[in-house]
């Protein structure tokens, strides 16, 4: 089987997609972008490969048994355990690095014991989270999971220990995150199977039976294309790098063939792209190097309010009206936010105003690229924000009439899919 790989190295997240020669998606992988782009790309690719093997495994199992229903839950449980095991391995490296840091510390021994304790609990906590299916694989990565649990554990500790242990983490996470940890699919899967509840042991055995066939399949891509913000830094040759604009357009076209306009709001840039019926770009606009109007704007606001980006949207949805935000600059908007709150304005309203502001800026860009046409596809990490989606829908309706608006839960993969499809198109 020939497979093709597309990689989208975004400023926040790195995505990979593997497609078959017929263009169907075999596997998706995602991770957070980190300072070493190669590592980010590699992990995303590996993740996509695992994802692909799991689908193969599932297909075979289902084919054999004939029923799909019961297997789905089982595979979810299995994949969760699989991901947990990856977490555990990475946790090991991080723990080692952290302890290494402590060796030079004056009261190192004492701290190490405290740390050991904490790490154990972090692991337990995260295991439970994985096993109960409470981890969203497309937006919570090792770094987020670990730091969430770790910080929670540190919370009650006294000041001095707290400071040392946060420092230890801060200094260790970057180097560790930038190491590639090789995983063996077979070993990990077998281990995951063994972690299944006893009641499922039988089914586990059925799955294990197919493992050898599945790992025998080669997933080495016949061709690959990299795109995204960091594409120039990938060690790829020129013909393996494509502009993110074209990839996003083609990806959107593959998900929604009727798409004529794509709006992508990512972490560091916003793109408005017009596409023709073949998925070819006819025009586009991209914003400049200014955080006003892209995902980081919201991220910054979330920091100002000490909440997570995920909470912003729901909070803004609860607003009665949108406070008028005068500043364009992200930093000034942050100051304005504080002013409004001090004057007694409700935080929901101010947030709504900030959300509206970002959408208005995106729409100005959209207009410059030629406006929204039917069908209109909205993608990028910010498309996960419900309040943004609301304003995008409203503004589309008032300015461009009743268009079909596509927002796919998977649409974060559009750039990667487009990149993969490029390989197919040029065969």
């Amino acid at each position, binding site marked *: 089987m020939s497979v093709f790989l597309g990689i989208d190295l975004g400023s926040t997240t790195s995505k990979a997609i593997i497609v078959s020669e017929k263009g169907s998606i075999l596997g998706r992988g995602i991770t957070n972008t980190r300072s070493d782009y190669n590592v980010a790309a590699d992990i995303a690719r590996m993740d996509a490969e695992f994802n692909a093997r799991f689908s193969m495994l599932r297909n075979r199992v289902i084919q054999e048994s004939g029923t799909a229903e019961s297997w789905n839950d089982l595979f979810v449980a299995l994949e969760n355990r699989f991901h947990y095991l990856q977490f555990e391995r990475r946790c090991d490296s991080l723990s080692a690095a952290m302890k290494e840091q402590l060796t030079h510390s004056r009261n190192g021994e004492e701290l190490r014991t405290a740390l050991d304790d904490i790490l154990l609990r972090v692991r337990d906590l995260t295991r439970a989270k994985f096993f109960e299916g409470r981890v969203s694989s497309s937006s919570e990565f090792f770094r987020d999971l670990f730091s969430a649990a770790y910080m929670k554990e540190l919370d009650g500790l006294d000041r001095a220990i707290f400071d040392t242990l946060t420092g230890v983490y801060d200094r260790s996470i970057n180097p560790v995150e930038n190491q590639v940890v090789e995983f063996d699919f077979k070993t990990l899967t077998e281990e995951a199977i063994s972690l299944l509840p006893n009641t499922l042991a039988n089914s586990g055995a059925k799955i294990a039976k197919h493992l050898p066939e599945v790992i025998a399949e080669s997933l080495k891509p016949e061709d690959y294309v990299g795109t995204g913000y960091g594409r120039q830094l990938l060690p790829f040759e020129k013909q393996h790098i*494509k*502009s993110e*604009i*074209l990839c996003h357009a083609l990806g959107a076209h593959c998900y929604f063939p009727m798409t004529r306009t794509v709006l992508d709001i990512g972490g560091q840039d916003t793109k408005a792209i017009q596409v023709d019926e*073949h998925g*070819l*770009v*006819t*025009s*586009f*606009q*991209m914003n*400049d190097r200014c955080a006003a109007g892209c995902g980081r704007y919201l991220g910054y606001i979330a920091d100002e309010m000490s909440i997570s980006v995920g909470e912003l949207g729901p909070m803004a949805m609860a607003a009665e009206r949108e406070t008028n935000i005068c500043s364009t600059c992200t930093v000034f908007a942050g100051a304005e936010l504080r002013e409004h709150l001090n004057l007694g304005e409700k935080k929901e309203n101010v947030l709504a105003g900030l959300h509206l502001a970002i959408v208005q800026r995106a729409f100005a860009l959209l207009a*410059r690229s*030629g406006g929204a046409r039917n069908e209109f596809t909205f993608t990028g990490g910010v498309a996960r924000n419900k309040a943004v989606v609301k304003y995008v829908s409203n503004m589309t309706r008032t300015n461009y009439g009743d268009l079909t608006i596509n927002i796919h839960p998977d649409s974060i993969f559009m750039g990667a899919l487009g990149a993969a499809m490029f390989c197919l*198109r*040029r065969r």
Partner: protein
Amino acid sequence: MSVQKENSMVKQKQMLADHFMALSEAPMTGRKVCYTFVPGNLTELITAFDMLPVYPEINSLQSGMRQRSRDFIREAEDAGYSEDVCSYVKCDIGMMLQGNIGPTDQQLPPPDLLLLSYTGCFVFMKWFENLRHLYPKAEIAMLHIPYQADGKVEPSAIEYIKEQLRTEVIPKFEKVAGRKIDDAVLAQCMNRSAMAEDLLINVFESARHRPSPIDAYFGGVYYIGPIFTSFRGSQACVEYYEELWKEVQERVALKLGPITPDGTFTEKYRLVVEGPPNWTNFRDFWKLFYEHGAVFVGSTYTRVGGVYDYGFRHSAEDPLKSLAEYCMGCYTNRNLPQRIDLIEKFIKDCDADGLVINSIKSCNSFSAGQLAMMRDIEERRGIPVGFIETDLVDPRYYSYSNIKNRLDSFFQMLEQRKELVGKAVLVS
């Protein structure tokens, strides 16, 4: 690699050197100096009074190419000129504030006459108001050229221009020159201008060949040098275009592309371009296209000093009327629908694959409305349009990575289109 030089190029270089020599000697020879602008310039008239023209825009352009503009612009901004305004003005004023050392490192003489013939741009007027304060001794002649707002030339506008020439411009010339106009010289100039114009149009229209023997933008800006500035109406100018036309015909016969600084060139994409080029990074800018095998087969910028594509030629029959018509017809004095028509004509005549718009931050005259033009062309012709933003001479507004990013996508758009058309995937 050594740069290939053709006879026409050598000739042009010599013409310029002679001109600047004459300028630097003007204080000795007593020849009078007239500052004026390229669009709607009255070179024939200036020659008929045996004066020497100086074009502030050309000075700015040259300063940009010689990497002096950053300094000059800074000088002007220090003197109170806003960051927001046209950089040509600032570059020129900065140069004057620093001693008026021209492109050949010789000092330029101050003007005896400021001929404000302002065609197609209001900034020209402001520019001269500022120059007037810098050169309080110069005589000033104002020639107002109405806009072709409705897509045609009103007879009243021609009358108006003629009257201004008769009652304002020529008397000022006569005052400065200290003598009457030489009608015979004027007539001769007008006739020679027409000859050169015929040849220039031949050169431009040669871009219809495949491969195109010329680059109508990066080469074009050199081709228009003599005719748009100090030399139109001179014998040397006619000879330059005869030489150039000969060279172009040779390349057509040999099926050769344009001469480039990097030698041979294989044509892959044929493009039309709207807007002036960037001067501070001219070579860099050219390379961005050259690397992709793109040749420009049509450009609007090379029409700022006169549009000859629709048949207008200078004529000795009624010289003032002819000059008036010339002024009215320059590219930026035409309304947006007319500008779109011209672009469409280039695209059709030369069978172009795409349009590039280089939107210049400085130049509202060109830039305001380009996005609407872009949309109209896309609709009319269904070809990809690449939109980039640079500046004429302000290096702060030339962002290589930004342009490259946009152009990469644009060329990939073109490539995809070619590939798909080639594979007949496009179902129509």
